[in-house]
């Protein structure tokens, strides 16, 4: 075996082992640099894995050489690769762009611990994506959650403490529900491995414990994925977390929970439980729809830019959930693509917020009047990413919305109302974004000072790279599309 064969294990091991080393470093700058390098290396690993998946198909890895079902199995297919790219990409973007902002938010003495927690969170999220069995998913979920609570609470804003407490309670309930469900399945099938589970469920279908397990797992993961109305932890957590942390978690953490949700409901249950996909659709589509409409409406009335974007995230998660609930090939492609494209757009938007707060020390919209005239470059990038969020053609958001609309059009009888809902929500997105864009360009600046005050060139460059990637993936979506198609194939494979 050469090193390339160990890629799935390295994906988790690299950040996990770097974390304690980072804590030993003395200064915030060195810790940041080490975390950034580890994050970039993970991104490199994820890219290598993606290339391998696209070339030779699913990658299997047995930890320590112990073959499944006894050993721990890691599996990386197109779906996992997509999620890995999201996690490592978001982490790298947030770390690279967040240096200045984090230096202000995090006490220098505690900075090494903070960056250590960051790497542990990333390792946990990567672990969820590569784990081949349900229990390890739980373990990594706990690792990443605990580390994420630290990241959110690490800033100077004391309101983060109550926000993170709420997140902790709800996150723990979600994880417990998940564990209860997994326990039931283990009781009935004697296995934790996803592949085995899918096979052995056949013998015990329609037994009550399995149906209950499906309910517990779905609701537990919906809590962690912040599917409306189980989202109540999300807006405050996103708003009061340090800005760079928001870039990281907003781009990937809920998406990882959706990933597990999809894996369980499609790869495991879909082929085995009679009528499961109907039940799943009945559960998730109404929630998704209310999220799409209500969260967008709530976003319009937010006075804080971060909170507005957080509610927008809840609505966007609704799109993903809606597409996933359709149980069709096109629907799953739409869901996976939107995971990727929304991460691009939201990552860029929150990175712009990092820049705004760096210069004006506030994320309250009233304090950001006239910011567009003072920071024209950052604001233009914000508009570009906002267009992608709305789904204007030529941007990445359009591609996934197009797939979503085509997917709901395939639903007999419900196609038109669903399309109307999606379009109404897109129009609301125009409203809440434009409310900010208008005052940013034409509002009276709050102070007397109206001089230009752009952020430093490296951050500006990074913001523009992120913004232009929204355009690039809108015109050339081949890479995420290939991964989404391969991922949806794997998910529906259990069916066919």
């Amino acid at each position, binding site marked *: 075996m050469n090193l390339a064969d160990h890629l799935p294990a390295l994906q988790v091991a690299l950040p996990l082992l770097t974390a304690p080393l980072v804590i030993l470093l003395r200064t915030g700058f060195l810790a940041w640099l080490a975390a950034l390098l580890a994050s970039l290396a993970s991104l490199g690993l994820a890219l290598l894995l993606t290339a391998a998946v696209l070339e030779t198909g699913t990658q299997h890895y047995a930890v320590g050489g112990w073959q499944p079902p006894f050993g721990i199995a890691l599996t990386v297919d197109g779906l996992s690769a997509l999620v890995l790219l999201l996690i490592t990409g978001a982490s790298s973007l947030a770390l690279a762009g967040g240096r200045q902002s984090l230096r202000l938010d995090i006490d220098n003495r505690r900075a090494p611990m903070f960056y250590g927690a960051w790497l542990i969170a990333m390792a946990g999220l990567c672990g969820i994506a590569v784990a081949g069995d349900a229990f390890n998913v739980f373990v990594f979920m706990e690792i990443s959650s605990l580390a994420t609570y630290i990241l959110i609470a690490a800033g100077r804003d004391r309101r983060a403490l109550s926000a993170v407490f709420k997140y902790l309670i709800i996150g723990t309930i979600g994880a417990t529900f998940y564990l209860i469900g997994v326990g039931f399945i283990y009781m009935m099938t004697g296995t934790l491995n996803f592949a085995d589970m899918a096979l052995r469920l056949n013998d015990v279908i329609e037994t009550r414990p399995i149906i209950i397990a499906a309910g517990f797992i779905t609701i537990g993961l919906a809590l962690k994925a912040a599917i409306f109305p189980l989202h109540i932890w999300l807006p405050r957590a996103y708003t009061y977390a340090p800005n760079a942390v928001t870039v990281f978690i907003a781009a990937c953490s809920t998406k990882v929970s959706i990933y597990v949700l999809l894996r369980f409901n499609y790869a495991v249950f879909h082929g085995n439980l009679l009528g499961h996909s109907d039940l799943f659709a009945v559960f998730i589509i109404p929630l998704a729809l209310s999220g799409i409409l209500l969260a967008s409406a709530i976003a319009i009335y937010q006075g804080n830019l971060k909170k507005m974007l957080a509610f927008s995230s809840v609505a966007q998660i609704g799109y993903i959930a809606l597409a996933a609930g359709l149980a069709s090939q096109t629907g799953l492609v739409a869901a996976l693509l939107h995971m990727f494209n929304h991460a691009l757009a939201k990552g860029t938007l929150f990175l712009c917020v990092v820049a705004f707060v760096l210069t004006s020390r506030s994320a309250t919209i009233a304090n950001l009047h006239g910011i567009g005239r003072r920071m024209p470059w950052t604001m233009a990038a914000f508009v570009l990413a906002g267009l992608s969020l709305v789904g204007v053609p030529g941007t990445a958001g359009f591609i996934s919305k197009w797939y979503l*609309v085509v997917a709901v059009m395939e639903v007999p009888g419900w196609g038109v109302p669903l399309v109307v809902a999606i379009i109404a929500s897109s129009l609301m997105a125009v409203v809440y974004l434009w409310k900010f864009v208008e005052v940013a360009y034409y509002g009276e600046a709050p102070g007397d000072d109206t001089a230009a005050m752009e952020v430093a060139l490296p951050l500006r460059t990074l913001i523009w790279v992120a913004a232009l990637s929204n355009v690039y993936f809108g015109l050339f979506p081949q890479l995420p599309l290939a991964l989404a198609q391969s991922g949806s194939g794997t998910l529906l494979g259990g069916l066919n």
Partner: protein
Amino acid sequence: MGAHTLPVILLLPLLGAVGIAFTGRWPNVREAVSLLTAVTLAILVFSWFPEVAAGARPAVTLSEPLPGLSLALSLEPLGMMFACIASFLWIINTIYSIGYMRGNREKHQTRFYICFALAIAAAMGIALADNLFTLFLFYEILTLSTYPLVAHKGDAKTVASARVYLGILIGTSIGLLLPAIIWTYVATGTTTFTLGGIIQGNVPGPAVGLLLGLFVFGIGKAALMPVHRWLPAAMVAPTPVSALLHAVAVVKAGVFCVTKVIIYIFGVDFLFSQPSAQWLQYVAAFTIISASIVALYQTNLKRMLAYSTIAQLSYVIMATIILKPLAEIGAAVHIAAHAFGKITLFFAAGAIYTAAHKTELWQLAGIGRRMPITMAAFTIGALSMIGVPPTGGFVSKWFILAGAFQAENYLAIFTIIASTALNAMYFLPIIYFAWLAPNAPDVDMEHGEAPPAMLLALGVTAALTIGFFFFNQPLLDLESQLVQSLPL
């Protein structure tokens, strides 16, 4: 020229925008760059004319994000004409803008010229779009790039008007046009413009009317009532913007899109056979008559011109929906004829504002004696709106009426005659007062003509308005290619 050079038409104004951004510190250089870009673009666009007139249809695909959904450009008669008009009038408008912006000491002039170049690039993209997806993309870019131009002044009232502008245009395009495009794609598997249409056989009869409705109201830039409100709102912009964009590039992009959709997506013959699509002529007729009546009651010159534009845009839609060859030619020709006439009128309005700071109609009494050149041009433009020979407006009206008779469409004939009378009712009094009435009381008369750059611009467009009456054959030949397959 090879078809692969088509994107240059779009890139050139973009490049110009970059050049303007970098030379913003030196106004003379900046405006030279602007003018140079405009001239180069027009030469480039016109160099394609002979080829397209000879029947060539150059096409190029830039990227294909999804199967059946590509970013592709092509040139056909309608787009060729639109590109020619927009690029040529951009030169004149740039000359005019230089006079206007300097004469009124406007702020943020660099932003103004940049956004203008971007808007022209978007208009070129609309003209060259080979499918609905590409069309939609540039349609949205055009809306976004003109927003800063409308909100140019930046005070609360202007920003509120700009919000109406953006809200209606984005709202209709995402709320109605996008679903129409998706519906077309799902039903037919393509969005490419094809002569003869792609809808036939793919959408059941009654739904055709609904789809048509999604298209024509979704294309808010065509200002069909009740989605016309953005156009009067856009009049808060500096006059060169109203002149080129809200008399030519943006609104013409709207009716251009409608015409293109009817000819290339629905197909003229197919739509003629669909009873469910007939409602559109009633809406167009209603828009023509009621916009003309509203114009009659306006007291502000630019607002009056805006309502006149709304009526004239519906002429094009009316002509298109008559669905007879002569009327289709008339629709295309009216896009050109109205462009020359209306830009002249706006140029004159801007000249009056710059030289005399007058915006209301009652202030214009006797102004013809102080600004003879401006008012002469205004008179020519107004006559073209009414359709009096020898002006361009007569040519298109002739074709539209001929088409209406061909189709025995008495609604169209009646509407056109009634609106001609209404046009005369609101334009002729102005002409009379401006030349012959005694000066209005309490009005400053210590002014002369507008700056020479502006006079040059409005002189050229007034000459074009008359010239179009005599020299319109190349355009007629070009546009008759649209209807070659139909029996004349």
